[in-house]
C-alpha cells in the first residue's frame, strides 16, 4: 500500500550528538532496572534516531526490557520511539518483532491509567501498517466507550485515522459507533473529533447529524462550530441539495461570540454564495474583526480577505469604505497601507468620495499634531496619506481644491519624499485642470521661498516655467519667481563676491536693477528683496539661504533649472519689458559664471552647456549676431520652449504614472478577468486533477490548499508532462560511457529543496557490489538523504535518489564519486563524478519594485559585483533581452500586468515573450535603445528566500558596433551578488556559443 511506503517525519529535536554511543552501550543502559536510567537511555536513543542514527539491533532490547516498564515517562518516550523506529525490513515487509510490539500496545490500550491509554491511541494514529493495527482494532473500538473523555477523544481520532488510511471496510462498524458516540458525548473535543471523523469518512451521517441539530449549533463550542463550517463548505461545493439549510446555519453562526467562528463563517459565505446579502454579511463580519481585533496579524489577514471580496463584489463593499477606513487608527504602517490598497483600489466612487477625502484630510491633520509627530512611522504615514489624496483627487477634481492648500503646506517640509509627493500632486493637478492652475501657481509662488529641497524647488520652477503663460496669471505671478530667484542670486553673487574677490560691479548692479524693477511692480516683494540684501550684507544666513546654499554648493541641476525656467518664461511672454529681460539674462549669466568657476563645474559640465543654451536663446531674442549653427540651435530651443512641448511630455509621463500607480482608481480589472477565451478549457471541479487551471474566483479548496502546504506528493509531480520534458532536457552525464559504472543525474528543483535523481548503470559484465554514490556539496547546500549502496548485476540499471536542502540563493556545486567492488578484485574501485552546478536561476523569481524603493536599496546594500560587458551581441536591445531572460530580472519601475493572467506558465520565470513585452512597454528605454548609443537600465528580481537582487546595466555602443560597459549587481548578501554576477558572466559568453 502506498501509505506504507512513504516515510513521514513526526518530530524533530536538535541534538548535539558528538560521537554516537554504540548499540551495546545503549542496550546496557536500557536493560537497567532503574527507571530513571532507562528513561534517560531511551531519551538518548530517540534523540539519536531523530538525528539520523539507526539502531536496528536495539529493537529487541526495547521489547524485552523497556516495554515491560510501568514508569509513565518511559511509556511516553516509547510512543515516540515507536513513531520513529524503522518498522519494516529492507524489502518493505513488516518486521516480525513488530508483532511483539502489538501485544504491548494492546496491553497499554487496556491500561488502567487513562493517560497511557490516550497516548497509545494517539500513537496508533500515526501507525500506517495494517498488520500492526489489525489485532488492536477491537481494543481501540472498545476505548470509544471509555469512562474518560481523554481516552475517548483519542480513540475517535485513532478510528478516524485507521478508516482514513485503510478505508471504512476495515472497521465497518466505526461510523455507526462514532455516530452513537456523537449523540451522547459531552466532551467538546471528543465531540468535535467524532464529528470530524464523520465529515471525512461518512458525510451522509454528518449531514444528518447537523441537520438534526439545527438551532442547537449556535450553542455548541467554538471548535465544534468550526468543524460544522468545514462540513458545510465541503458539502455545498459538491452538491447543492441542502445548500439553503446549510447557509442558514452559517448565518446563525455568524453571530457567534467566538471571533474564530465568525471569521470562518465569513469566509464560508464568501466561498459558497455570491448573493449580495451573504457577501454583505461576510464583509460586515470581516470589518468587525478588523476594527475590533487589536492584533496586527488578524488585521492584515482580514484585510487580505476583504481584498479578495472587493475584487469580485465591489458594489457590496462600496458602502463599507468608511468602516474599513476606521482601521487606519492602527499604528502599523502595513495595516494602513493595506487599508488604502483596498479602499482606493476601486471602492471610491462619486458617492463616497467626499467622505473619503474628508477623512483623509483629517488624518493628515492628525499627523501634524504634537504627539503624532513623535511617533515612529508618522512620516511614512503622512506620505501614504498624501499619495492617497493624490489618487483620490486625481479622479475627482472638485475635491482637489479642498485638499490642495492643505497639502501645499508640506512643500516646505524637511522630509524630501513628502515634499516631492506634493509637488507631483500639484503637477498633475496643474496639467490636468487648467482652471486650477492660477490659484495653485499663486499659492506656490508665495511659499516657494521657503522650500529647502532641491528636488522640490526644481519641480516648482519647472511648473512656473511651463505654465505661467496666461497674461493675467503672469501679472500676479511673474515677479514672484523672479523675485525669489533674484533675491537668491543677489545673495549668491554677494557670496561669490566674497569668495572670489571678483566682479563687484556686477553685484551692485544686479542689486540695483532688481530693486528698481520690483519697486515699481510690487512694493512688498521689492521690500523683501531689499531686506534680503541687507541681511546678505550682514552676512547672516536666514530664511532664503537654503536656495542660495544649494546654488552655491554646486547643485548644477538646480542652476540649470533656474536658467531654463527663466528663459522659458521670457520666451513665452513676448511683451516683457526689455529691462526685465536684461535683468534675467544677467542673472543667468551670473549663474553660468558661478557654475563655470565651481570646482566640480567647468565649461564642459551639463549644467554649463544648458545655461549657455539659455543665454543663446536670449541672444536670439535680442537679435544679437550669432554664428549660423549656434543661431539655428538657439532658434530650435526657443521654438521648443515656446510651443509648450513640455506639456505633451508631461501628459505622457502622467499617463505612465497612472498606469503604475498603486491605486488605479476606478479602473476595473474585473472585466478582464471575467472574459474567458472561447477556446479555453472548461474546468469541472469534480473532474479536476490536482493540476487543474485557475479555479473559479475565490473558491479556494481547503483540501488543495492543505495538500499544497504539506508539499505536493512527488508521484504526482512525476506524472506531470512538463517534468518529463525537463528531465529530457536537463539530464547531465556524470561519468563516461566507458566507465564501469555510468551515472547520469537529473536535478529537480522543489521550492526549497532539490531532488537529485541518479541513474546508475553497470556497464561491465560482472556483478558490482556496494555501488555507492558518495556526494558532497559546496555552497549553501545540505545533503539530507544520501543514496544507499546497491548491488548491480551485469548491465543492470537503477535509479537512486538524494535530497538536498538549499539554504540561500547561491550557486552551489554538487560533486562526488562512485565506489563499487568487483568480486574478482579485492579493492574498491572508484570513479570521480562530474560537477553538477545548481542553477541560481531556479531561485530567482521576477518581481516588481518601484524606483524609489530601488534607489533606497541601491544605496543601502553592501555587496556590489561589477561585471564588465563582453559580448558578441551588437544590438543593445538584444543584449538586454538576453540578460533579462537569463536572469529573470525585470525593469524597475513598471509592473508587468500582461503576464498576470498567463497562469499556465511557470510562475516566476520570464519567457522571451515577456521580456519583449517589457521592453516594448518601457517607452523611455526603447527610445534610448533606438536613438542613443548609451543605455542604462535598472533591473530587479527577488529570490524565493525573499532576498532582493538589484542590477544596473550601463551599455555604450561603440562606433565599431561592439558593446561595452558594465553591469553592477548589488544585494544584501554576498552570495547572491556573486552568483548572479557569475551567471551574467556565463550568460553573456554563452550567447556567442548559442549564436554561432
Amino acid at each position: 500500500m502506498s501509505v506504507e511506503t512513504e516515510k513521514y517525519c513526526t518530530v524533530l529535536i536538535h541534538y548535539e550528538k558528538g560521537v554516537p554511543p554504540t548499540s551495546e552501550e545503549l542496550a546496557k543502559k536500557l536493560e537497567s532496572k532503574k527507571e530513571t536510567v532507562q528513561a534517560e537511555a531511551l531519551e538518548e536513543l530517540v534523540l539519536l534516531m531523530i538525528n539520523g542514527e539507526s539502531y536496528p539491533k536495539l529493537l529487541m532490547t526495547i521489547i524485552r526490557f523497556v516495554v515491560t516498564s510501568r514508569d509513565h515517562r518511559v511509556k511516553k518516550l516509547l510512543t515516540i520511539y515507536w513513531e520513529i523506529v524503522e518498522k519494516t525490513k529492507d524489502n518493505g515487509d513488516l518486521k516480525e518483532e513488530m508483532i511483539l510490539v502489538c501485544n504491548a500496545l494492546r496491553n497499554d490500550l487496556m491500561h488502567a491509567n487513562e493517560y497511557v491509554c490516550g497516548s497509545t491511541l494517539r500513537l496508533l494514529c500515526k501507525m500506517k501498517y495494517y498488520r500492526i493495527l489489525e489485532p488492536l482494532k477491537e481494543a481501540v473500538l472498545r476505548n470509544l466507550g471509555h469512562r474518560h473523555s481523554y481516552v475517548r477523544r483519542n480513540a475517535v481520532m485513532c478510528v478516524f485515522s485507521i478508516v482514513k488510511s485503510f478505508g471504512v471496510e476495515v472497521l465497518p462498524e466505526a461510523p455507526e459507533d462514532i455516530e452513537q458516540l456523537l449523540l451522547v458525548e459531552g466532551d467538546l473535543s471528543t465531540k468535535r473529533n467524532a464529528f470530524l471523523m464523520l465529515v471525512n469518512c461518512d458525510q451522509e451521517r454528518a449531514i444528518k447529524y447537523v441537520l438534526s441539530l439545527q438551532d442547537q449549533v449556535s450553542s455548541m463550542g467554538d471548535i465544534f462550530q468550526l468543524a460544522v463550517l468545514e462540513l458545510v463548505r465541503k458539502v455545498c461545493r459538491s452538491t447543492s441539495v441542502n445548500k439553503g439549510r446549510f447557509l442558514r446555519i452559517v448565518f446563525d453562526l455568524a453571530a457567534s461570540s467566538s471571533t474564530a467562528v465568525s471569521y470562518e463563517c465569513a469566509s464560508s459565505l464568501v466561498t459558497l454564495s455570491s448573493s449580495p446579502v451573504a457577501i454583505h454579511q461576510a464583509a460586515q463580519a470581516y470589518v468587525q474583526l478588523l476594527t475590533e481585533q487589536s492584533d496586527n496579524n488578524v488585521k492584515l489577514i482580514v484585510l487580505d480577505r476583504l481584498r479578495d471580496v472587493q475584487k469580485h463584489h465591489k458594489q457590496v463593499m462600496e458602502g463599507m469604505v468608511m468602516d474599513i477606513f476606521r482601521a487606519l487608527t492602527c499604528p502599523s504602517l502595513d495595516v494602513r497601507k493595506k487599508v488604502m490598497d483596498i479602499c482606493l483600489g476601486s471602492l471610491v466612487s462619486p458617492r463616497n468620495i467626499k467622505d473619503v477625502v474628508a477623512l483623509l484630510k483629517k488624518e493628515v491633520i492628525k499627523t501634524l499634531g504634537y504627539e503624532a509627530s513623535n511617533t515612529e512611522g508618522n512620516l511614512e504615514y503622512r506620505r501614504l496619506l498624501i499619495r492617497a489624496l493624490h489618487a483620490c483627487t486625481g479622479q475627482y477634481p472638485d475635491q482637489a481644491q479642498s485638499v490642495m492648500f492643505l497639502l501645499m503646506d508640506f512643500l516646505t517640509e524637511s522630509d524630501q519624499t513628502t515634499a516631492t509627493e506634493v509637488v507631483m500632486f500639484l503637477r498633475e493637478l496643474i496639467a490636468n485642470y487648467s482652471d486650477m492652475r492660477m490659484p495653485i501657481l499663486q499659492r506656490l509662488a508665495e511659499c516657494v521661498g521657503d522650500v529647502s529641497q532641491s528636488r522640490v524647488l526644481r519641480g516648482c520652477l519647472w511648473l512656473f516655467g511651463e505654465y505661467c503663460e496666461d497674461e493675467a496669471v503672469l501679472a500676479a505671478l511673474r515677479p514672484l519667481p523672479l523675485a525669489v530667484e533674484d533675491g537668491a542670486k543677489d545673495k549668491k553673487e554677494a557670496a561669490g563676491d566674497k569668495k572670489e574677490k571678483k566682479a563687484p560691479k556686477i553685484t551692485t548692479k544686479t542689486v540695483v536693477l532688481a530693486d528698481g524693477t520690483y519697486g515699481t511692480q510690487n512694493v512688498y516683494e521689492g521690500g523683501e528683496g531689499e531686506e534680503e540684501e541687507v541681511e546678505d550684507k550682514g552676512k547672516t544666513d536666514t530664511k532664503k539661504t537654503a536656495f542660495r546654499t544649494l546654488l552655491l554648493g554646486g547643485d548644477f541641476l538646480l542652476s540649470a533649472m533656474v536658467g531654463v525656467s527663466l528663459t522659458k518664461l521670457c520666451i513665452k511672454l513676448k511683451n516683457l519689458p526689455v529691462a526685465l529681460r536684461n535683468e534675467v539674462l544677467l542673472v543667468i549669466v551670473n549663474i553660468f559664471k558661478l557654475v563655470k568657476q565651481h570646482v566640480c563645474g567647468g565649461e564642459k559640465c551639463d549644467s554649463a552647456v544648458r545655461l549657455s543654451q539659455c543665454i543663446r536663446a536670449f541672444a536670439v531674442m535680442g537679435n544679437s549676431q550669432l554664428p549660423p549653427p549656434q543661431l539655428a540651435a538657439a532658434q530650435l530651443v526657443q521654438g521648443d520652449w515656446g510651443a509648450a512641448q513640455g506639456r505633451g511630455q508631461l501628459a505622457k509621463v502622467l499617463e505612465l504614472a497612472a498606469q503604475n500607480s498603486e491605486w488605479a482608481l476606478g479602473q476595473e480589472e474585473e472585466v478582464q478577468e471575467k472574459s474567458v477565451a472561447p477556446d479555453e478549457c472548461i474546468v469541472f471541479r469534480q473532474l479536476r486533477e490536482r493540476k487543474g487551471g485557475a479555479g473559479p474566483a475565490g473558491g479556494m479548496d481547503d483540501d488543495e490548499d492543505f495538500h499544497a502546504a504539506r508539499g505536493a506528493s512527488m508521484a504526482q509531480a512525476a506524472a506531470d508532462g512538463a517534468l518529463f520534458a525537463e528531465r529530457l532536457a536537463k539530464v547531465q552525464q556524470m561519468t563516461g560511457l566507458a566507465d564501469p559504472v555510468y551515472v547520469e543525474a537529473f536535478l529537480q528543483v522543489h521550492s526549497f529543496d532539490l531532488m537529485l535523481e541518479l541513474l546508475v548503470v553497470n556497464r561491465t559484465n560482472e556483478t558490482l557490489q556496494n555501488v555507492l554514490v558518495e556526494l558532497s556539496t559546496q555552497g549553501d547546500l545540505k545533503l539530507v538523504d544520501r543514496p544507499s549502496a546497491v548491488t548491480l548485476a551485469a548491465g543492470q540499471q537503477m535509479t537512486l535518489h538524494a535530497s538536498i536542502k538549499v539554504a540561500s540563493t547561491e550557486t552551489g556545486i554538487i560533486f562526488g564519486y562512485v565506489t563499487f567492488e568487483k568480486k574478482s578484485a579485492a579493492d574498491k574501485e572508484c570513479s570521480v563524478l562530474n560537477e553538477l552546478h545548481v542553477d541560481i536561476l531556479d531561485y530567482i523569481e521576477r518581481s516588481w519594485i518601484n524606483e524609489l524603493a530601488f534607489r533606497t536599496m541601491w544605496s543601502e546594500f553592501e555587496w556590489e559585483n561589477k561585471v564588465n560587458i563582453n559580448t558578441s551581441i551588437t544590438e543593445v536591445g538584444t543584449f538586454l533581452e538576453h540578460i533579462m531572460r537569463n536572469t529573470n530580472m525585470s525593469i524597475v519601475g513598471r509592473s508587468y500586468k500582461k503576464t498576470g493572467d498567463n497562469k499556465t506558465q511557470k510562475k516566476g520565470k520570464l519567457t522571451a515573450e515577456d521580456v519583449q513585452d517589457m521592453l516594448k512597454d518601457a517607452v523611455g528605454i526603447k527610445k534610448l535603445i533606438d536613438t542613443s548609443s548609451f543605455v542604462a537600465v535598472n533591473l530587479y528580481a527577488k529570490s524565493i528566500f525573499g532576498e532582493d537582487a538589484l542590477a544596473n546595466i550601463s551599455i555604450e555602443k561603440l562606433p565599431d558596433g561592439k558593446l561595452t560597459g558594465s553591469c553592477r549587481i548589488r544585494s544584501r548578501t554576498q552570495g547572491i551578488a556573486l552568483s548572479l554576477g557569475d551567471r551574467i558572466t556565463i550568460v553573456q559568453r554563452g550567447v556567442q556559443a548559442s549564436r554561432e
Partner: protein
Amino acid sequence: MVVLSAAIIKKDKTLVARQFVEMTRLRIEGLLGAFTKLVDSGKDHTFVETESVRYVYQPMESLNLVVITNKASNILEDLETLRLLAKVVQDCCEIQVSEENVLKHAFDIVFAFDEVISFGYRESVTLSQIKTYTEMDSHEERLHMMVEQSKINEAREMAKKKQMELAKQRALQPKDAAGPGFGSDSLPGIGPSSMGNSSFQDTMPSSGGFGNDMGSSAPWSSSMAEDSGPAPLKPGAPKKGMALGKKKPADVLGSMGLPEPAPSPEVAEEPAAPAYNPLMDPVRVDIEEKITADLQVEGGLDGEAVCTGQFQVTVLDASKADLAAFRLAPQNQEFKYKIHPNLNKTSHANNVLEVREASRAYRANAPVPLVKWQFKSSNEEFLPVQMSCWPSTTADGTQIVLELELTDTSVTLEDVQIRFPAAASSRPQITSAEPGEASYDGQTEVCWRIPVLDKSEANGNLEFVAKTDSASLMPFTFDAVRRGATKCPMEIVECYHMEKKEPIAFTCEKSCTYSFRIGA
C-alpha cells in the same frame, strides 16, 4: 485550519519541531529553513506567508515559537493555538525560555504540544488540563493498583486461613496420621485428596489467579512483597497455600525473606512433674506489658487507657527445650488474647501453650512472642497514679505546680520520669521537687526523676517557673516501670517438653511500662 507543525526555532537551527500531519522530513526542514530567512524582526506583525504556507510566530526571548499552517487557515484560531503553545513552552521551560532549557525539556514540550493539537486541529484544553494530561497521574490506576494489591493480600490471607484450618484438622486427627516430619518436606504431597477437604479446593481458583498475576508482573510483585515485610514471623502458611502446583509464587515468597518458623511439639499430653534446674534455665520468658494513656491537665482520662502485653519466649538451649510447652494459670477473660498462629489453639483454650506440630520447634536464641493481649479501659482506677497540674500566669511567664499521687498503693513504680517541654529561651527555674530531683537539661525539657514511688512515699510535687506561656509547656509526659508484676494476671504454672514431657526450667521476667501524655 490545519496546523502542519509547531516548532521552536533559534536563528539558524530548529530546536524542536512537532508535525501534526504527514510530511516528509525534506519538506518540513525546507519549510523551517525558509522561515528563518523570511522572518523579519522589524515588522509589527508576526506572520509570514509564502506561496503555500503561512507561518505564525511569536518571539520568545531569543527564540521563535512558530506554527506552520496552510494559507486558508483561520488566523484567529491559529493565534489562539500559538498563545496556548507559548504558555506551554513557558511552563515546560520553568524559568527561562532559552535554547538550553528548550532542549533539556524537549520531550516534555513535544508531549505537551500533542495535547494542544491533534491532527492539526486545536483541542479545547487549558494549561492546567495539559499539565494533568502530561503528569499522567491517574486515580484509576492507583485504584487499580490498590485493588490488585488487596487481591494479593486477600489471597494470602485466605491461604493462611486454610493452612490454619488444615493444621487444626491435623491436630484433631490421631497422632499416627502425622508422624514426625509429616508435611515438613512433603508439602506438595498434602493434596486436597489426601485431606479430603473440600473447602481447601475452593481456594484453588483464587490462589491460581493470584499466581498468574504474580507471574506476569514479577518486578512489581516483589516490591509489593517488600511492603508486606513487617510481619516478622509470618508462618509458612502462604507457602503451603501457594505451593499447590505453582512454583513461581513460592519463589516469590521465598524471596520475601521470612524467617522459617520453628517447629514445635505437637501433641498435648499430661505433663510430667516439673524438674528444676536452678543453675541452667534453658527457657526464658518475658512477660511485658505497656500501658499508655492520654490524660487531661486537670487530671482524668482523655479517651481510653490502653494496656497491651505479650508473652515472649526465648529458648536458650534448643536441645532441651526445642518443644517447650507452658501451662498457665487460668487467665483473666477480661483481656483479649491472641496466640501465635504456630500454636495449637485448642490447647490454649486449656491454658496450655504448645506448638501445633513438631516441625515448628523453637529455634535457639530467637525470641518468639506466643501470646499477646490487650485491654482498654476508661476507668481512672485502672491507672496507678493521679496527677494534677496547675499552671498559672505570672508577671514574666508561667508557674507550674504539679501534684503526683500514687493511688494504687499495691504498686511500686520505678524510674518515674516526668518531662515538660521547655525551650531554652524560656529559661525555666525549678523552685521545688519532692521527692526525687528535677532538672533542666538546658535545651528542650524539664525532667523530674523519682527513682521509686511506692506506698511509703505516695505523694510528690514539682514547682517551676518558665518565661513562656503555659501552652508551650504542654503536653508533658509521664513514664514509669513496674517490675515483677503485670496488670494482666499471667502466671506460668509449669513448663515442660512437649514430647518428652519432662519439665523444663525457666526464668520469667515481668514488667509493665507506663507511659502517659498529659495535656495533649
